[in-house]
């Protein structure tokens, strides 16, 4: 009998099979551990801008991991994740504009706001399936985008700067290194919680419904309420990531919530691999560094970038995480069917 736990990383829902907790968390610990070295390296190389770059990387990793709960685990291709992300950012920026500087207020407000928006629009979008769902979430994303473009009181198309210094539990938030570690701690928490979530009873239902909706309702579970719950949870975490973006770069503009950003997030997820919780975090790292590298080489970096995305879909559909897993188990690159 073959050991099937390693064999079946072919489909999104296929690979979450029984491994021990610690083993499942090992890649998470390695990834977060390596990221934790960034400030040390940046100081050592006297390249402090790297901390800022990697703070952005970590923030997008959180957003990508949350999107993957919807995309990879629940099988829902949502193109409105950037809107929920940006909404969290705007919640922080707008409240700060009105004098609220306490993160313990700002961040929960952002989480709540994005979660609520996900609930309302998810309820409508989840009535549809397949291509309709993709197109509707794309349209909803643009609705939020235009709303903030038009909101001239808060910067309109130009975006909104946060001038007030922010506090955490009454104390002034430290420099960029502190903010980096704060974001990294949140990423770690999201990765651990995400891993637990996909293995829980709730995760079982979500994964089963992604693979076979009819089977789930036939055993007595209404998939819709579970899908809505997962959409809200992921939306709330996207709001959290958006809040951290504003905390770290003290600025938000509608560009962060355009549908292209939603597309970027999906590319990060697929690039990293939908089959693991940590893959999309790796995808975010590679995506943003690649963007940085290409844009340093040529102003026309979007051309090679677009081609890379197409090649990715054609040839590396199971993502980097699976490639790493396959190489490690000596399995070779398995194609998908």
């Amino acid at each position, binding site marked *: *009998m073959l050991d*099937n*736990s390693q*064999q*079946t990383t072919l*489909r*999104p*829902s*296929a*690979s*979450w*099979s*029984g491994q021990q*907790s610690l083993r499942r968390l090992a890649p998470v610990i390695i990834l977060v551990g390596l990221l934790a070295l960034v400030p040390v390296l940046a100081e050592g190389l006297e390249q402090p801008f790297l901390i800022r770059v990697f703070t952005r990387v970590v923030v997008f990793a959180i957003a990508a991991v949350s999107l993957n709960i919807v995309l990879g685990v629940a099988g829902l291709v949502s193109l409105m994740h950037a809107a929920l992300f940006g909404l969290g950012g705007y919640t922080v920026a707008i409240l700060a504009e009105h004098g609220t500087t306490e993160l313990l207020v700002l961040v929960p407000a952002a989480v709540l706001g994005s979660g609520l928006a996900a609930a309302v629009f998810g309820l409508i979008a989840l009535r549809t399936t397949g291509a309709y769902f993709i197109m509707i979430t794309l349209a909803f994303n643009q609705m939020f985008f235009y709303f903030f473009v038009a909101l001239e009181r808060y910067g309109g198309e130009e975006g909104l700067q946060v001038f007030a210094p922010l506090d955490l539990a009454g104390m002034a938030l430290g420099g960029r290194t502190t903010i980096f570690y704060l974001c990294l701690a949140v990423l770690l928490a999201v990765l651990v919680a995400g891993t*637990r*979530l996909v*293995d*829980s*009873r*709730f*995760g*079982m*239902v979500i*994964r*089963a419904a992604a*693979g*076979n909706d*009819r*089977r*789930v*309702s*036939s*055993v*007595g*579970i*209404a998939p819709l309420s*579970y899908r809505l*719950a997962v959409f809200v949870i992921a939306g709330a975490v996207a709001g959290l990531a958006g809040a951290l973006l504003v905390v770290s770069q003290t600025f938000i503009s509608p560009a962060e919530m355009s549908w292209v950003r939603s597309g970027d997030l999906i590319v990060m997820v697929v690039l990293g691999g939908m089959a693991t919780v940590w893959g999309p975090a790796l995808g975010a790292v590679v995506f943003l560094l690649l963007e940085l590298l290409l844009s340093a080489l040529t102003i026309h970096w979007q051309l090679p970038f677009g081609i890379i995305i197409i090649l990715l879909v054609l040839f590396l559909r199971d993502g980097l995480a699976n490639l790493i897993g396959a190489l490690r188990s000596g399995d070779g690159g398995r194609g998908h069917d």
Partner: protein
Amino acid sequence: MTESILQVVGLGKRFGGLQVTRDLSLDIRRHETHALIGPNGAGKTTFINQLHGGILPDAGTIRFDGVEITREPVHRRALLGVARSFQITSIVAGFTALQNVALAVQARQGHSFRFWKRADDDRRLQEPAMECLRLVNLGGRAQTMAAHLSHGDRRQLEIAIALAMEPKLLLLDEPMAGMGRDESQRLVQLLKSLKGRYTIVMVEHDMDAVFSLADRVSVLVRGSVIATGTPAEISADPAVQAAYLGHQH
């Protein structure tokens, strides 16, 4: 043995210009095994779908175990005790056999809004699920990915999932379809072992299976029941033979 658990009265369903179910009435007795036979296109699968809730009828009523369920959605009927296997096997391909069954166990135990504890370590799920797998002789395949099971094993897995729902009524839509002779015989043995403990309504073309399992048989032709009776009565019924063999009258 004669108490009825399912009463179908005057069921009708139209798709466009096609009447697929017409004034269909049928009583199913508690703990009987009742086979539905009839030519293709007679509306057997449509009827199973109407019992299961995937298709809602235009007319008529369905009462199950004292409750009217005519317009209840699929998951609500499942919780009332209606379980089914599909004509084309329907399992979660990316789950192990055990996980497929555990899903049904957890549905039975109430809501699944539990976000932290690992389901695979949950003995309240795993033990009853394992029990059902053993019942269908799949105990040794518990950790095999459902996608890698043979066709026959998958059909048995589907029955294990149904049993895990602790059903009062098992709807089996062509359980023997696509099976080799050995596999069919194994499945017949399995169903024999369940017979009498559950109420079973099965659509089946394999006459060997029908005649060795069914207590009663109903014949569907063009959306209505034209005869109901014991297997012996049915095979002696000239109207039934005509429906199958096309004797002219």
